[in-house]
């Protein structure tokens, strides 16, 4: 029997607001334990939450980018459960009245566009972290992260393969980073993904029993975990068994999924409206104000790269994948360097050196320098080959290409191929002098060098010229 895979994703994106969602504490990562805290995020008796307007605004941004509806009235609710990293014994979240509903994100499957629905997005507070001392039975609680704003983004079960799921995830990731609302760091947990996956016979109307996958800290892990779970469920179904609805943890070391907790332990979260917070009101004028602050989004930028820069769709897609990369490309092009040439340099040379696009802005080679380099090659100041040497030097020193060319004498024609062409022309055009040289009159070399310098307006590398003439003349 053939099965169809059905996947839905739940993404928790930490919002990059300066302060926490319900208090004024900083959200910075890496501070000493329990220092970014106050009575509110510590959940001390008598403290009360005050909603951070920026968190709502970031939610509106994402809603607009995903063509979703921002509900004019939404409500915070308490999700009650006990855990030591949850100081109040409940998480302030949203339940039946989320901030955002009915969105969509387009992905590309086999060169065809497929629309993935977004059920809802809601705001909530993050929990703290437990640090376990493995040597003794003791755990520590760090509440620095408690109260960091999260946007939970829930997709419809529209994804039909692990590859589709990862493509959707990448699109969402790119979008959040374009909007500058989430730093997208999956290792540090600022962009977390849980997946629901089930299988059903092709053509069946009903969904199969699903499992929920957790603990996937990279796109690669998401793909691998979904593929594994897809195989596991298919094997069960083919043997006539039934899939148990449960939460599975991805074990990246073993490359398998393992059950976390069974349904019998399912929590009753006892959601109810949070009495300490008012309904969240978002009127049209607020939405419109936010709309005007939206940056150009990946899809629009990709199209513009094709239309205005004349880039091939492949180049445009690659360059717009990360906002920093696209920004870099545009800044380099602003020097007047030809777009396609800049694109080639960015995609081949630059990305070979800087693997994470997010780090491009911090790299040694500024976009202006790269643009200048391309221009210098274009106007013949240096050859493309020399250009690569200059680029290597730019990476290590961070210097302007012009400075490097002067210092290293690269502005002289040191390009062997180019000089060789001229050397051969001169030799062919000077049979008498060749004969003299062959007869042992080595002083005639001066004649050849003179001709070459004349042709290259004095820019040939003399040492290289000498070598080339000696070699070519000897070969005659």
């Amino acid at each position, binding site marked *: 029997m053939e099965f169809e895979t059905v996947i839905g994703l739940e993404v928790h994106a930490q919002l990059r607001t300066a302060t926490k969602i319900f208090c004024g504490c900083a959200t910075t990562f890496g501070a000493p334990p329990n220092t970014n805290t106050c009575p509110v995020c510590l959940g001390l008796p008598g403290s009360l939450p005050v909603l951070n307007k920026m968190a709502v605004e970031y939610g509106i941004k994402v809603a607009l980018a995903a063509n979703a509806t921002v509900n004019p009235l939404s409500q915070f609710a308490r999700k009650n459960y*006990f855990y*030591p990293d949850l100081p*109040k*014994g409940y998480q302030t979240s949203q339940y039946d009245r989320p901030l955002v509903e009915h969105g969509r994100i387009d992905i590309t499957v086999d060169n065809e566009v497929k629309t993935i629905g977004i059920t809802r997005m809601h705001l909530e507070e993050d929990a703290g972290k437990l640090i376990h001392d493995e040597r003794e039975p003791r755990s520590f609680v760090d509440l620095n992260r408690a109260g960091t704003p999260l946007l939970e983004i829930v997709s419809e079960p529209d994804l039909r393969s692990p590859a589709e799921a990862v493509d959707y995830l990448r699109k969402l990731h790119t979008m959040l980073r374009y909007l500058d609302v989430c730093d997208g760091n999956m290792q540090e947990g600022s962009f977390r993904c849980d997946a629901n996956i089930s299988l059903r016979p092709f053509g069946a109307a009903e969904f199969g029993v699903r499992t929920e996958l957790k603990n996937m800290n990279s796109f690669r892990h998401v793909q691998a975990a979904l593929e594994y779970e897809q195989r596991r469920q298919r094997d069960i179904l083919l043997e006539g068994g039934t899939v148990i609805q449960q939460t599975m943890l991805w074990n990246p070391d073993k490359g398998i999924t393992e059950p976390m907790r069974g349904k019998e332990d399912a929590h009753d979260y006892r959601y109810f409206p949070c009495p300490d917070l008012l309904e969240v009101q978002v009127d049209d004028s607020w939405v419109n104000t936010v709309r005007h602050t939206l940056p150009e989004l990946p899809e629009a930028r990709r199209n513009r790269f094709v239309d205005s820069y004349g880039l091939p769709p492949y180049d445009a897609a690659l360059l717009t994948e990360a906002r920093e990369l696209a920004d870099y490309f545009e800044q380099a092009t602003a020097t007047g360097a030809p777009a396609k040439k800049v694109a080639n340099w960015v995609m081949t040379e630059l990305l070979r050196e800087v693997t994470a696009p997010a780090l491009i802005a911090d790299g040694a080679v500024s976009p202006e320098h790269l643009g200048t380099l391309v221009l210098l090659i274009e106007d013949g100041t240096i050859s493309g080959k020399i250009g690569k040497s200059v680029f290597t030097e730019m990476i290590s020193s961070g210097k302007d290409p012009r400075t490097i060319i002067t210092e290293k004498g690269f502005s002289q024609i040191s390009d062997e191929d180019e000089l060789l062409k001229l050397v051969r022309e001169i030799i062919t055009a000077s049979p008498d002098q060749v004969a003299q040289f062959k007869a042992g009159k080595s002083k005639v070399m001066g004649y050849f060098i003179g001709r070459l310098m004349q042709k290259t307006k004095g820019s040939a590398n003399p040492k290289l010229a000498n070598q080339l003439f000696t070699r070519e003349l000897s070969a005659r």
Partner: protein
Amino acid sequence: MARGQLSAVELTRSCLDRIDTFDSRLHSFITVDEEGAMAAAAAADTKRDLGDEGKLLGIPLSIKDLICTEAMATTCGSKMLANFIAPYDAAVVENIRAAGGIMVGKTTMDEFAMGSSSETCCFGAPANPYNTDFVPGGSSGGSAVSVAAAEALGSLGSDTGGSIRQPAALCGVVGMKPTYGRVSRYGLVAFGSSLDQIGPITRDVTDCALMLAVVAGYDRRDSTSVNRPVEDYPAALRKGMDTLRIGVPREFFQEGIDLEVEGVVRGGIDMLSDAGATVVEVTLPHIKYGVAAYYLIASAEASSNLARYDGVAYGFRAPADELLAMYKDTRTQGFGEEVKRRILIGTYALSSGYYDAYYKKASQIRTLIIEDFKAAFCDCDVLVSPVSPTPAWRIGAKTDDPLAMYLSDIFTLSTNLAGLPGISVPGGFSGDGLPIGIQLQAPHFHESVLLRAAYNLELQTELANHLPSL
């Protein structure tokens, strides 16, 4: 004091002396800060010499022990927080300090404000100053006792279902629950967040107006506080009753009400009428569901609000080998019976499969009760009713009968469900010499009208500043 005939030091000393003399019998305080109070009194005298005219300058006050104070422990009457010292002052404590008030101590209360007699306090229950074999009411029992016995000249209590008004009535003092949102809850340890409100307990209506003026106002740290100007409450008292319409809710004078209580309240209505008010009968048809709705909503919120007492970061922790045992033992040992009962009721009301039948239904009833009051206030400006169906009862009489205890809040808790302001004013005494109060209620933010009616009633009863013989 303004005339220089009495110093803050003398006044505070006299309150502390009364505490020394009477509190072993009355037990109105969990913590007394003699040193801090005397230092603050000396500072207040210096300030007055320098021309400071703070509204409460040099006035000794007591604070219910679930309002956070940096200087003293905030126990909430519970073993769970026996040693808890808040790292911050509640908004109202800041207000009191800024107005020059002196905090002599923190008062006895039902554990986490859950009770109507103050007997669930785990540090010993307070006694009624008019007869120490009787309860003072609750949950702000210690606050009411401290004021009735002049151990403090005023107190801040909290009222979730009658916890200011009922003990004030049972102890013969004035107690007011302001409109929900009028006073910041920041620093008030939460019981039922949508119902809780801090308010004054005082020896007369004028003091009540004065204290309310100090603690009322918008606070951005409490999202449910309302940004609305604070009226000049003391000035509002002096207006007469000529234009006021007094509503008498039919449902509040039916069976179950003690005849002495009914007599006192009816007498109060006559007094207001004599003072010039028009009296009309009104109806609150859904009020009979109030007790059920209240105990579901308050307990549901409490079950969540009290989840933070888990032994992890602060408060009591029972030693245990693993996490679940620590939670269970901490909460089993740290909370008293009544608190556990309400957590269970609330947890049940919010549980999957029961939410619609209990919490949601209760919320719907709440809306109907709000509508009832709105309709009633079309015909009148102030409602008059009993505070408690009976005068104070003997200590221990209802401790084994939670339902009887819950019913003692029948006339007060709908005020909280509707978020209205309400006040209890001394109305008279029972044949046993126990105080009986009269409750007045008004529309949202009509505290001025409420205080004006209360003041006029007080002029008639002549029970302001009555002192029990101890």
